[in-house]
């Protein structure tokens, strides 16, 4: 299945295009895929842990309504439309804890729909 990649924002930090994934050399590790479900009004899981330098793909599904994923401190952003999963590539470049939220209003409870990306050294 062809999968879409949506990484928005010209200032995206740490966002890694997957356009050339198929040309990746065998020596390079495949990214770790983390499946994330965006339901009203929660991300499952709400906390995602990675290590600095680790190649990660956040694979979002939104089975109910259109949602958003936005981690402003990292410049990662994606529109999550029901349908095929939306893949966001991420290679953390610094340790810390970075909040993300749903930035597409999705109903009564939207304001509490958030999560955290935890990057370990």
């Amino acid at each position, binding site marked *: 299945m062809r999968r879409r990649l949506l990484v928005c924002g010209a200032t995206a930090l740490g966002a890694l295009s997957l356009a050339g994934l198929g040309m990746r050399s065998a020596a390079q590790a495949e990214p770790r895929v983390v499946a994330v479900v965006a339901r009203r009004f929660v991300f499952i899981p709400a906390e995602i842990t990675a290590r600095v330098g680790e190649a990660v793909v956040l694979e979002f599904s939104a089975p109910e309504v*259109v949602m*958003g994923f*936005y981690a*402003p*401190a990292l410049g990662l952003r994606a*529109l999550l439309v029901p349908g095929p999963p939306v893949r966001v590539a991420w290679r953390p470049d610094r340790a810390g804890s970075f*909040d993300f*939220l*749903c*930035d*597409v*209003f*999705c*109903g*009564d409870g*939207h*304001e*509490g729909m*958030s999560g955290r990306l935890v990057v370990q050294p």
Partner: protein
Amino acid sequence: MPSVIDRRDVLRLAGAGAGLVFASGLAGCAARAGAPATDFHFVQLSDSHWGFDGPAVNPEARHTLARAVAAVNALAAPPDFIVFTGDLTHTTDDAQERRKRLREFKAIVADLRVRDLHLLPGEHDASLDQGAAFQEFFGPTHYAFEHRGVHFIALDNVSDPAARVGEAQLAWLAGELARLDKDAPIVVLTHRPLFDLAPQWDWATRDGDAVLAQLMAYSNVTVFYGHIHQQHHHLSGHIAHHAATSLIFPLPAPGSQPRRTPVAWDAARPFRGLGWREVERHGDGALALEQYDVAGG
């Protein structure tokens, strides 16, 4: 009288291009003693979230808006007009319930003794149906009007659930601005902040930069908005932004805690943090903001 003025913070804003002069804490009347005669004044109400049900944060949710209406009606000098900067109602998935809430809200504010009431949608009113129900009751979600030489521009940054003003509205704004002199007095009304106040709490407009880029060429621009349920004052260059308190529950200071959870109701100080503001424009172009809290009891 159900509601009285119990606090007055006065912000005096210099006129064209001069930026912000802060005079908070002055007694309202004293602060205005030496000011030029008032040219006109209007009231900003915001974020009543009619239909909200949450006793822990506002057990008086069914009465708070009516208290504000009564307090505005009790002003010694009636305002020239009133603006309501969004989230008139609390969101619901039920389209019929949404219209019921809008209908009830409309009936309550019909008691305001003012000729002109300019309403804007918030995301709770408009984001789930792209403003359809709001428009049925109140007309266009973006518009402009003029009052005594001041150009008011109402922008919709909520009918798109992703908080975009959008290309069509940006083009409309450009057309509105093109008719004005660069030093024309302009007041922008909107719901969300046009600048990145707290993106981690979704307190922003995705294409707010594009709006501000257009406005930046004009030397006398002031923005009044809602959404954040508290007073907040900010400058983008020479453009002043003023957020209003809500009429349902206060929210914490921007970014002050991990989550933007409502401030709990304080039975010892009912209605704390809820209120509205009066904006006076003086003959010299200065604006004075006066905060009125919803009083308990």
